[in-house]
Structure formats: structure tokens, C-alpha cells
């Protein structure tokens, strides 16, 4: 029966022009969005490629310089490629990168605002971790037209356009009485109508996005990529299910097509546009992020006081300006400076730590607030999950930063003893410098997080459907 209803509905639906136009628009948006996302991930890949090429060239150059010095060439006093403090601090800075995933083009997420690579040196963690990709702030403000934008914002509107008149059109055409006189319950008709629309629209989104990726030459055959594709499709289906639940709920009141359309549009506006931005505003008012201005001030005071401690004026001076040291005693003086700097840097970091920790604490408070209220907006739940599975969300970034922090500690602990022991760096040591390796989060973590989101979306759609079915039982044409 259901199949026959769906087949009939298919013929009815696509005999008109509008659904074709809607699907065409959807397909075009998907194609454009995926292309746009691809352009961004390719830019990231090119940038990382350039970074590592730059690093390789720099290392080769440094090794040559070491060889030349060992052969008798006079070293530059402030950029001696054998001095561990110069090497670890400036010369051999190495890149730590979080490369985009195969699915990253589908959701730009926060990847345009948050850094995806850092240049690691022995400098303080704060200064190493404040790297910015150059970008026009206007473009960051506008955001990008990516597939998750299409799914989150436009998808519900298209669902509304396809199904705001599920019953009302029958009522307005006078065919509803005929329909209800059949020995088929109304809910079966509704199931057929909605099921068909849901199947068509979800199939178009999922197939089109994957086809676009495949055409672009993205390899989706690895097991990680396949799992992520499945999760992605699950989130899209769950989000669509939620909106079809809303459609069913609104329809069950049996109002006119115009009223249904208005009610659906208002729901969309509230859940997708107003609620997330209001929640954002609330988070920043209730848990204001301490301005970095305060941190800079604290850093200044701490570094002044640390530098003034002891008889370090000269040392600091040489630290700022090693080229002033006469070449004859440069090695000795520089080493003393280097050791003093180590001590000062440690002191500064120790003193600024509580100020820096406040950012993490406040961000955690904001996120807790968001987590508490996110279930009110399926848009937030779905966007989060899409970012998560695309690898452009907050979780993967935090994972990246924690790996970078470990690596930074490792990098420092490599150079500090050499500085104190006044050891020299050799050409061979450049080849053995540890390189940062990015390990993905276990896929299980992502499955856990996103399946909660998918579950919540499906659950709310089931609840909406259950209420609507009860209402539909009492449905009367007169109503």
C-alpha cells in the first residue's frame, strides 16, 4: 500500500515544475558548495606544502653553513647555526600541521578562524600558539558557502517548499474527502507522502555531495573516510528527519497552506538563525572572554621584573643584541646570555600561566553554556556533528593543540640541556631533529560524539511524529 501511495505521490509531485526547480537548485548549491570547500582545503594543502618546502630548504642551507664554519668560515655572531639557542629559537623552527581530511571540503567549520599549522620554536608556548593565517576579516565575518551551510540553512527551507501543503493542498482542491473515504488510514497516506519526499531529498544530498567529491578526485575508499561518509549521511538524514517531523507536526493542525508555510518559516528562523546567534551573544555576555590586552599587560610586567632580577642587565642586553658582542669573545658571552634567557623565560612563563589559564577556563564555561542549550536548536547539534566528522570542529582542534603542546615541550627539552652544557649543534643533528606527527583522534571518539547527535535528532523527530499521528487520528475535514 505504502509503495503504491509513494508511486502515486511521485507521479503527482514531479508532474509539476516546482519540485524539479527545487531539486535543481539544491543540486546546483551542492555542486557549488563542494567546489568551494575543495578550493579551501586545496589552499590549505598548498600552504602546508610550501611550509614544509621552506623548512627543507632552510635546513639544507643551515647544514651547509655548519659545514662552512667547520671548514673555517667565521660564523655570524647572532645566527650561528651551531648554537643550540639560536637553532632551537629561530633558525630551525619546524612546522606542526593538522592536514585537512578527505571530508573537510564538506564543512569549512572553524578551520578558517583557527590555525591549522604552527611554527614551533623554544619560545614560550603563548607566542608559539598565536599564529594567524592571513585573511580578509570581512571574509571571515561573512563565512563560506560550504555544504554544511547548504544542509543547515537551505535544506530545511527546501523541505518546507516541497511539503508545506501535504494535506492542505488536498483539502484546498477538495480531494481530501475522497482520500479519507478510502479504507486506508490517514497516517499511512502521510507516511507515503513524507517518506517519498524524505527519500528523494536525502538521496539527492548524499549522492550529489559524494559524487562531487569523487569527481574532484578525493579518495574516499580508506576505511576512515568510509566511516566518516556514513556518519555524515547519518547526520544529514537525521537533520532532515527532524524537519520532516516539524512538517508533520504543523500539518497535523490542518490549517491552510499559507499558514503552514508561515509557521514552518518562523520555526526555521527561530531554530536556525535567531537561537544560535542569541546563544552566542549570551555566552559572550555571561562568560566574557578576558581580553588579550590584559595578558599582554601581565606579560610585560612579568618580563620586566624577571629581567630586572639579579645582575642580568648586561645579559639581557646581549640577549637582545648579540651582534654587539665583539667577535673574539662571542661564543662565551653568547652562551652566558643563552643560559640567562632560559632562566628569564621560565620565570615569565611561570608568572603569566594563571592569566593564560583564564582563557581556557572561560572558554570551557562558554562551551558548557552552549552544551546546555544546544539541544534547543537542531541546527547547532547538526552543525557540530558535521564539523566533527569533517575534522574542522573544535574537538579536533583541541586535540591538535594538545599534541602541539607536547611536541613543544619535547622540542624545548631537547635544546635546554644543550644550551646549559654549551654543546654545539652539528650538521648531522639537523637530520635527527624530531618532526611533529599528527595522529588523528580515534574514530571511536567521533562515532560516540556524533551518534549522540544523530540519536537526539532522530528522537526529536520520532516524538514530533508520534504527537502528530495522535493528532491526525482526530483529523476531520471540517477542522
Amino acid at each position: 500500500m505504502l509503495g503504491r501511495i509513494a508511486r502515486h505521490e511521485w507521479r503527482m509531485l514531479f508532474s509539476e515544475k516546482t519540485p524539479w526547480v527545487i531539486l535543481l537548485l539544491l543540486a546546483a548549491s551542492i555542486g557549488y558548495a563542494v567546489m568551494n570547500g575543495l578550493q579551501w582545503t586545496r589552499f590549505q594543502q598548498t600552504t602546508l606544502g610550501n611550509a614544509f618546502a621552506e623548512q627543507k630548504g632552510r635546513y639544507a642551507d643551515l647544514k651547509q653553513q655548519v659545514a662552512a664554519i667547520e671548514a673555517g668560515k667565521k660564523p655570524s655572531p647572532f645566527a650561528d647555526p651551531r648554537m643550540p639557542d639560536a637553532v632551537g629559537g629561530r633558525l630551525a623552527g619546524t612546522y606542526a600541521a593538522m592536514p585537512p581530511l578527505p571530508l573537510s571540503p564538506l564543512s569549512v567549520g572553524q578551520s578558517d578562524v583557527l590555525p591549522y599549522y604552527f611554527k614551533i620554536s623554544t619560545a614560550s608556548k603563548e607566542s608559539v600558539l598565536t599564529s594567524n593565517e592571513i585573511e580578509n576579516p570581512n571574509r571571515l565575518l561573512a563565512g563560506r558557502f560550504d555544504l554544511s551551510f547548504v544542509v543547515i540553512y537551505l535544506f530545511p527551507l527546501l523541505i518546507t517548499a516541497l511539503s508545506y501543503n501535504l494535506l492542505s493542498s488536498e483539502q484546498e482542491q477538495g480531494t481530501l474527502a475522497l482520500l479519507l473515504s478510502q479504507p486506508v488510514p490517514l497516517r499511512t497516506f502521510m507516511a507515503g507522502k513524507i517518506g517519498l519526499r524524505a527519500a528523494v531529498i536525502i538521496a539527492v544530498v548524499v549522492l550529489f555531495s559524494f559524487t562531487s567529491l569523487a569527481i574532484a578526485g578525493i579518495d574516499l575508499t580508506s576505511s576512515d573516510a568510509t566511516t566518516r561518509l556514513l556518519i555524515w549521511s547519518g547526520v544529514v538524514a537525521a537533520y532532515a528527519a527532524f524537519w520532516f517531523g516539524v512538517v508533520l507536526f504543523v500539518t497535523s493542525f490542518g490549517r491552510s497552506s499559507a499558514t503552514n508555510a508561515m509557521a514552518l518559516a518562523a520555526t526555521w528562523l527561530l531554530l536556525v538563525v535567531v537561537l544560535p546567534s542569541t546563544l552566542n551573544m549570551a555566552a559572550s555576555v555571561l562568560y566574557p572572554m578576558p581580553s588579550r590586552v590584559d595578558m599582554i599587560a601581565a606579560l610585560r610586567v612579568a618580563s620586566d621584573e624577571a629581567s630586572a632580577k639579579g645582575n642580568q642587565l648586561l645579559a639581557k642586553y646581549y640577549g637582545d643584541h648579540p651582534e654587539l658582542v665583539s667577535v673574539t669573545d662571542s661564543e662565551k658571552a653568547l652562551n652566558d646570555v643563552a643560559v640567562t634567557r632560559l632562566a628569564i623565560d621560565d620565570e615569565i612563563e611561570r608568572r603569566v600561566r594563571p592569566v593564560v589559564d583564564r582563557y581556557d577556563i572561560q572558554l570551557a564555561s562558554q562551551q558548557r553554556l552552549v552544551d546546555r542549550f544546544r539541544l534547543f536548536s537542531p541546527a547547532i547539534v547538526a552543525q557540530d556533528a558535521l564539523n566533527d566528522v569533517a575534522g574542522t570542529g573544535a574537538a579536533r582542534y583541541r586535540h591538535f593543540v594538545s599534541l602541539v603542546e607536547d611536541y613543544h615541550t619535547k622540542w624545548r627539552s631537547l635544546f635546554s640541556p644543550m644550551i646549559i652544557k654549551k654543546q654545539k649543534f652539528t650538521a648531522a643533528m639537523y637530520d635527527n631533529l624530531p618532526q611533529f606527527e599528527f595522529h588523528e583522534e580515534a574514530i571511536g571518539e567521533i562515532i560516540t560524539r556524533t551518534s549522540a547527535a544523530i540519536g537526539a535528532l532522530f528522537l526529536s523527530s520520532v516524538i514530533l511524529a508520534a504527537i502528530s499521528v495522535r493528532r491526525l487520528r482526530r483529523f476531520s475535514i471540517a477542522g
Partner: protein
Amino acid sequence: MNNPSRMIISIAKKEMTEMFRDGRFRLASGIVAVLLLASLAAGWKQYGDLKNQHETAQKAERYNWLGQTPKNPHQGAHYGVYAFKPKSQLSIVDTGVDPYIGVAVYLEAHKQNEFKFRPAQDAATSIQRFGELTAAVVLQILIPLLIILLAFSSFAGEREQGTLRQLLSLGVERSRLAAGKALGVAGALAAVLVPATLIGVLTLALTSSKGLLAVDVSRTILMIGAYGLYFLIFLSLSLAVSALSSSSRVALVVLLSFWILNGLIATRTFSDLAGFLHPTPSEVEFDTALQRDLEDTRELNARLDEIKSGLFQKYGVSKLDDLPINFRAISLQQAEELNYTKFEKHFGDVFDRFEQQNGIYQLGAAVAPLLAVRSLSMGLAGTDFAHHRDFTTAAENYRRTIVRYMNDDILVHPTKAGEEYIAGSELWKTVPEFQYEAPGPLWALSRYKTSIVLLIVWLAAAAAAVVFAARRIQA
């Protein structure tokens, strides 16, 4: 009813009465008013906090600078100063790009630094990219929707109810009918907007320690004007579409589609297009190219050799130590000045590119008036990229001032080999304090000629559409 203006007013009154009786309108405008006030309050609080922080920090920096220990002037230049971008008062209404640009720049010897610490990076909760609700968002996105809801059925609705035929049979002139309808919608809208504007202006006045007069009056008035234009465009378009549509349903669908295109799709699409036409270089590319230029010291060496031989000739000496001036100051200052052009080229290229991108974005206003009003609003609030660039230039000039003062002092203090010249607070005091005054409202407007022209074209076209549609109204 022969007096045309009285007729228009009575039509407007009838429209307004109907709207105020309509529960849906009361609910919608109530929600919009609450959101507008809440966003203003949030903007007010954030502005207050940040303004204090920035002012205190800038004072503290001056204090640090003056209180630094005695040291060689060049080391003083290395100690440097942080410049904090001041918050503009109208950022209460429109925070513009402020979340996406760094709050501070470190001014030190040898180097023009980039602005660090973008607030958006710190507040990176998972919903951050949905954007924050500011008064500007309410004005740019939600109010046009309210206008559409108020106006979409003006004509089409009366036609469906059959009252349009009655009206026209009474001999009411079509143009007066249209004027009356427009005035009615505008009046209903004013009931929401006028109190909100008053509260907004009052909020602005409250944030200024010097009272109402300290508010940047002309910027505020211009901003109100820009939004007024924008609302008039939506009002005229809605009436025209309503008059031309066969049913109110069609009118609503057409208007909502335009609203989605205007508010959701155009911003992203034109921003993407701008980036596609004028790609932004990556930090790695930028930095590598800049370093390559900075490391090339051939010109510096040639210039220094030339100056050196000139000085030897002038003073009749053959050793740097015998010069009555300190040659190191000349070498430092020459290096600085040669780098000016390098920094200007590299930073200038990127900034020019941003402005080209923003130009494309503004042209997008030909399709979506939002892009024009958004650019103008940020510009008038002083939270756009143009103002940021202006501040960047001011900060860089101050950096050059500091370094020049330090080098000038080294110049007149020659030292023998192994000696170190140490300066103290007397020298630090001679460097003037960093002062920054944002450019005036006309400067801000001059950045957005395209937007202004396109807004006016839109209004003219929309008004013409209303006149055209009103003439053709059919019952």
C-alpha cells in the same frame, strides 16, 4: 475626502489599526524589539569592558615605557611599546570585523609586526560560526523580514478579500492608495524602531563620560540614514511585489526568496567570489617573501659605504672611532629606512588585496542591498577594515618615531670600542605619547561610494516599481 493628504493619512491609519490588532504582527514586532534591545545591551556591556581594558593598557604601556631601566637607546627601541586598537563607540551597534582582527600590535625596532590575538580565536565555542546577534544583525536581517510580513498582503490580500474592487470603485486614486499603504507600514514599523533608536542613542550617550555631546553625532545620524534607506528599499519592494502578484501567497514566496538571497546567500557567495578573483596569500608565502627581501642587505651596505666615505672626507678621519658622531646610529637608521619600503610593499600588497576583495563584495550590492548597508554600517561604526588599516598605519608611524628618537640620541653619543652608552628616563620622556584619532565620518563615507550609489539606485528602482505597480493595480 478631496484633500489628497488627508486621504493618504486615513488609509495609513486604517492600515496601522489593522496591523496593531493582528496578533501575529504584535508577536513578531515584539520579538524583534526584544532582540534589538538585548543586542544593544550586550553591545553596550562589551564595549564598556573592552574600552576600559584598552585605555588602561595603553596608559600602562606608557608607564612601562617611561619606567624602563636605563639602557642603550637601541635596546630601548627593542623594549618597544604595544599599541592597542581603541574601541569605537558605535561598535555597540555594529562590531563589524573587530572579532576577526587582532587587538594589539607590538611596536619594536627593525620590524613591522602583524596584529595579534583575534578575539574570535579565543571564543571558539562550537557555535561561534553561526555569528553573534548584534544590533546590526537585527537591523540588517530581521527588520527586513518584519517589513515583508507587514507589507506582503497590502494589495494582494485586499484583492483576495474583494475589498480592493470596492476601494477602487470609490474613486480612490491608485497612487494615493499606494502612498497610504506605504505610510501605514512605515508607521507600524516606526512604532518598533523609533523607541529602539532613542534607547540606542541614549545608550551611546551613557557610555560616553562626557555626556550626550561626546557621541559622534554625525556618524550616528549617517548610520540611521543608511538603515533608513535600506528599510525604505524593502518597504517599496514589498509593496510593489504585493501589487503585482496574483495572490498574497505568491507575493510572500517572492519576497521571502529575495530575503533569503539577500540575507543568507549573497554575503557568502560574494565573499567567496571576491576571494576567488583576488586570492589572499598564505602567511607562509607572505613571510617567506618578506624575509627574503629583508635579508637582502646589498643596498644597505652600498649606502653605508657611501655615507662612511663621505663622513671620513668631511671630518678628515680614516677610522669610525675617530668620528665625532656615532656611526652605529646611522647604520641602524639607514637599515630602518630601507626596510620602510619593504614593509610598505608587502603589507600594502596584502591590504590592497583585501580592499579589492571588499570592492567586489560592495559590487554585490547590485544583487543584494544588504551588502551595501553592511559595508556602510561597519564603516560608519569605525569597525571595518578601512579603519583598521588607518590604525595600522598610525601605529607603524609611531614605531618609526620611537626608533628615530632612539637613533638620533645614539648619533650624538659616540663611544669608543668596548664602551656602552646608557640612556635613562630623560630620553624615554622625549618620545611623545601615542595618540590616535579615528578619521572623520566623511572619510568613512568616501570609502563606500559604491555602496551609497547602489543603495540609492535600489531605492530609486524600488520606488519606480511601486509607482509602476500602483498604476497597474487591477481588482
